[in-house]
């Protein structure tokens, strides 16, 4: 019996009309599906590439490798202060325009213009070609026709999104929809202390998304992160979320929290009491001086743990009740691998005590994340055996079910618009 109320249909899964049949993970082990996903999803959806604080002044730039779409993007703040994005390719002979030392590595910095390392063509921050070496030896070269190739770029609450489509089907705001935009007003702009983690994962990107959009696994996989006085009852009780919401391609899970400072000493790690912090963040939360937006803590849990906004396709904003947040990005590199990014954001520590509390939260995050990541490789390899092809999902895994359904829908939709292609990516 579940402890928390369910929707009238009896389950979240049925409430959102997702069907209760076992699911296939073929979409995570098929190179053909992956190739379609690249076209259907990553070249058509709005993709978050970072935050506006990464571009503090005119000429600030960073590059983002979008391997799945076979491109690299330059994101820059131009002379007018506008944020722009361009494909990172020189119009002369196709050299990568902005890179350092290793062409495949991302980079960032500040500049007045972009200069190609190969023959020295120069581009303004707004992408215009402004200088060609030995211009007089070219043939009818009209510099105005050889600016950098722009990428659609838009901002929402300080998050920078790009869209690789020629014409995006929707504006960013329409794409995000009311459930996500109900976060507007959250003081993301106050939380500028940034911890950026990155690591390669030997599994399909959707498998890691699944690992962070269900907490069914948490009391089991992460049991040893807490002393037995906590982990044994937690495992016996199992995990239930009080609230799930699905809207369009996006989804949210909200959880109840704990008050670690009210726990017995045998129920928490000793270092949590020393640092007054842990996985859920600092025990002492900063004053924000603003109302929380209505889209947060939708079940009005008290104490409230977190809301995890799974923003299609590969972006997560996870807001903690303790007044900090983190983001996840999952960048596919092949059908069976991706680059994972986890970024933690706090109101900047003002004292050593606060900074140590942040250290504890960040170190805890990594301990959990590494456990999650390695499990995925174990899943990927055995899914690929295809010994088992159908998998039962329970109600707390409702968001996993939804993610794979959306991936199938976008791919089917794309295939339908491409005569001569079936949904295995095969020309017919």
């Amino acid at each position, binding site marked *: 019996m579940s402890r928390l109320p369910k929707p009238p249909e009896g389950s979240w899964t049925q409430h959102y009309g997702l069907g209760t049949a076992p699911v296939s993970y073929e979409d995570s082990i098929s190179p053909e599906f992956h190739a379609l996903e690249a076209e259907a999803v990553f070249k058509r959806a709005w993709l978050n590439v970072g935050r506006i604080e990464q571009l503090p002044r005119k000429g600030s730039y960073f590059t983002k490798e979008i391997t799945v779409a076979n491109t690299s993007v330059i994101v820059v703040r131009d002379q007018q202060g506008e944020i722009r994005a361009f494909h990172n390719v020189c119009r002369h002979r196709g050299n990568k325009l902005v890179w350092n030392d290793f062409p495949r590595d991302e980079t960032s910095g500040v500049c007045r213009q972009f200069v190609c390392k190969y023959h020295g063509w120069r581009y303004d921050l707004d992408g215009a070609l402004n200088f060609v070496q030995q211009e007089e030896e070219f043939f009818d070269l009209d510099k105005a026709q050889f600016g950098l190739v722009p990428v659609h770029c838009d901002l929402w609450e300080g998050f920078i999104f790009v869209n690789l489509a020629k014409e995006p089907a929707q504006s960013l705001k329409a794409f995000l929809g009311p459930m996500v935009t109900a976060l507007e007003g959250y003081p993301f702009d106050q939380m500028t*202390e*940034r*911890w*950026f*983690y*990155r*690591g*390669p*994962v030997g599994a399909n990107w959707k498998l890691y998304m699944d690992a962070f959009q269900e907490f069914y696994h948490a009391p089991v996989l992460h049991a*040893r*992160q807490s*002393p037995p006085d906590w982990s044994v009852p937690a495992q016996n009780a199992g995990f239930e979320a009080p609230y799930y919401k699905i809207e369009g391609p996006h989804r949210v899970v909200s959880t109840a929290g704990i008050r670690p400072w009210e726990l017995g000493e045998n129920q928490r*790690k*000793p*270092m949590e009491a*020393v*640092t007054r912090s842990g996985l859920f963040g600092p025990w002492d939360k900063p004053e924000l001086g603003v109302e929380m937006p209505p889209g947060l803590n939708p079940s009005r849990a008290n104490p409230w743990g977190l809301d995890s906004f799974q923003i299609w396709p590969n972006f997560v904003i996870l807001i903690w009740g303790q007044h900090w947040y983190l983001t996840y990005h999952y960048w596919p590199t092949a059908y069976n691998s991706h680059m*994972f990014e*986890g970024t933690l954001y706090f109101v*900047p*520590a*003002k*004292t*050593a*005590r606060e*900074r*140590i509390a*942040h*250290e*504890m939260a*960040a*170190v805890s995050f*990594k*301990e959990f*994340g*590494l*456990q999650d*990541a*390695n*499990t995925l*490789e174990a899943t990927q390899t055995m899914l690929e055996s295809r010994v088992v092809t159908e998998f039962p999902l329970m109600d707390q895994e409702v968001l996993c079910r939804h993610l794979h359904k959306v991936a199938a829908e976008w791919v089917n939709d794309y295939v339908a618009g491409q005569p001569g292609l079936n949904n295995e990516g095969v020309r017919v």
Partner: protein
Amino acid sequence: MESMLPEAFADLEPFASKWSLATEGERYAERMATTMPEIQAFYDAVVPRAEEAIAYCDKYPLDDMPDDALHLLHLLYSMVQVSFPVECWGQPKIPDTGAAALDLISEPGP
């Protein structure tokens, strides 16, 4: 030899050159490269002094700490780092994490 830590923390001085490390990458690597008895000895020495050490560091603004206080702060970060082997794992490495890696590419000071 000149001491790294403030005088009041002379008892922690034997651990300073090994554990007073400025980045998470260095601290994590040091943890992986150290045996449990050595990790345990550091943990046992630093935890009882933690509250005092935090209070000491708290006397300075974060962006303008004298070197010895900064070393002490970095030692406290290492205390956080080694608490997982000591309190959870009984070994330096997180069990079942194979070759998985998660690198901290940019981190806040100090």
